[in-house]
């Protein structure tokens, strides 16, 4: 019945990304975007964005809400096709038509909702869509023991020591789930890992844990795209910073050309902050605490 109709059309080879892909040498550009843009009808969501993602490096994409971060990663992840500019993968101009296509090129995305199924056990989530099977023909079945072992080991390698991979993934904490999602992408041979606001919903300590895994993934030779609005999270792990504001790039800087202070001030938008401080002064009085604070921040 369903065993035949769906399984036979999806041979395991297309969906199982081989875990042991050899990472390219550190510093090789895996993804390059040149003046890329996205229009929805007459609405320009993103324009003139250029940056690169290199093996063994972390490219941070910073921007406030509505700056175009989501649009940008959707282009890289294959969820949306770009309408302007060029997307080069391994030096070749490409248009990613589906998340599957991106995945096959080794670009894995960990979304904010983590793409996990809360009621399913950790190990089933880990291998969802790329299950390991044994046996032949109609008797091909899940290799449960192997998958449990691998997911336990891979999570342990990332520093998460689960007592039971059989527990529903919904019972893990936000940070732990984030790490399962990262470990999953790393195991399935991602060359580029796109992380969509992985620290947004986390506390200070959990954020630190996630940053550690980002560094770990980088050290394993992966190119990481780290989307965040927090410069304090981006700066310690980032090698390159691309700032977005209102759908436009404010520049693409290597770490050597940028200090944390500059990054923070650019993020906050120095000029904008000054006018905001001015406005607050007018409405709330020059002596109000908040206006004073804004003024101090802006200068």
């Amino acid at each position, binding site marked *: *019945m*369903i065993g035949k109709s769906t399984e036979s059309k999806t041979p395991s080879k297309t969906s199982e990304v081989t875990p042991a892909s050899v990472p390219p040498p550190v510093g090789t550009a895996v993804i390059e975007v040149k003046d890329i843009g996205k229009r929805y009808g007459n609405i320009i969501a993103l324009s003139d964005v250029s940056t690169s993602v290199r093996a063994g490096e972390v490219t941070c994409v910073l921007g406030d809400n509505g700056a175009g971060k989501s649009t940008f990663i959707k282009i890289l992840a294959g969820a949306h096709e770009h309408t302007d500019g060029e997307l080069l993968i391994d030096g070749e101009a490409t248009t990613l038509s589906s998340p599957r296509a991106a995945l096959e090129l080794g670009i894995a995305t960990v979304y904010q909702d983590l793409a996990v199924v809360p009621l399913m056990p950790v190990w089933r989530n880990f291998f969802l869509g790329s299950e390991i099977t044994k046996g032949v023909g109609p008797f091909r079945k*899940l290799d449960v023991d192997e998958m449990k072992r691998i997911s336990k080991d891979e999570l342990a390698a990332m520093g998460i020591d689960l007592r039971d991979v059989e527990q529903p993934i919904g019972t893990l904490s936000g940070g732990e789930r984030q790490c399962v999602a990262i470990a999953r992408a790393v195991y399935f041979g991602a060359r580029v890992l796109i992380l969509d606001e992985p620290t947004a919903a986390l506390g200070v300590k959990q954020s630190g844990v996630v940053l550690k895994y980002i560094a770990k993934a980088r050290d394993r030779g992966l190119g990481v795209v780290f989307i965040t609005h927090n410069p304090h999270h981006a700066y310690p792990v980032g090698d390159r910073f691309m700032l977005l504001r209102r759908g436009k790039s404010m520049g693409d800087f290597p770490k050597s050309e940028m200090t944390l202070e500059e990054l923070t001030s650019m993020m906050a938008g120095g000029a904008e902050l000054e006018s905001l401080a001015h406005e607050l002064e007018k409405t709330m009085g020059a002596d109000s605490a908040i206006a004073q604070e804004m003024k101090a921040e802006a200068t």
Partner: protein
Amino acid sequence: MATATAVDERIARTSTLTRLMKRPEIGALAAAVVIFVFFAVTTDTFAKSQGAATWLSGASTIGIMAVAVALLMIGGEFDLSAGAITGTTGLVVGILTTEYGLNVWAAIFISLAIALFIGLVNGILVMRTGLPSFIVTLGTFFVLQGVNLAGTKALIGQVAIQGLSNVPYYDQAKAVFGASIDINGDAAGGALRISVFWWLAVTALATWILLRTRVGNWVFAVGGAQTSARQVGVPVFKTKVGLFMTTAGAGWLVGMLLVFRTSTVQAGTGVGQEFIYIICAVVGGCLMTGGYGSAIGAAFGALIYSMVNSGIVYSGWENDWLFAFLGVMLLVAVLLNEWVRKRAELAR
């Protein structure tokens, strides 16, 4: 559970009983045992072989459908046309053989093709339109109900198939779908119908697919979190359409079992049964919202339904109390399932 984690992070071993208690079908199993014991004690015939043969036979056809509907519900969808399909397929075989003289096996395969096509249409409509499957299959249900009645009347001038037992090769098909084995060697001891073995086979196959194959993993995933499943590369469309076709295929099997059991079929067969399948699946531990449930549980759900159905008769009670019982069972089961889900989802 949350406190247990905090107190003791490493749980050394869980007993088999604890593991069993976590299974979705455990509630239905317990209820089935209680109901069996109750009627076995309070009535004379219930636990005897002919009594058991009666309720097993009733449970088998409901059970096959309940198992298929459970798979679909775990996949996050409903099928209200599942009952009417059992009538449609039976009528197709009856009309093609008695009215047009077609070979009985050819008619059986044509009716299978029709059932799978209906399932395909259901699936594609649900997936392409994005409408709730409840509405889409309610539509197909009414279409099928109308076609079954009006079509049958138009083609053979009456609402029931007659003379099916006289068509060539009827005995062959009867042996596959309608045979029965006399318990204790004579008919008075009750006859165990072949449909019971079909039911066991379907339940075993469904359980194996659900828990031990990739497709089973996908069924849970598309029901639990469709967007997430798509993001990690699960073929959502194929899985869901496959599930609708499976339900329709099960409808065909039950249609064959019914038509070759009695050698006749009414144009109204199966209408009104669709909710019973859903109730059985829910009693068996399936969540209304998808992503959780069990095929064995649905089989137990059907067993409960059929045992109560027979038990009420043997007790000499008014038959219609069955519906009141069904309603209470459904509400209790839904509350229990919701509680289990919350515990699984929210425990940190």
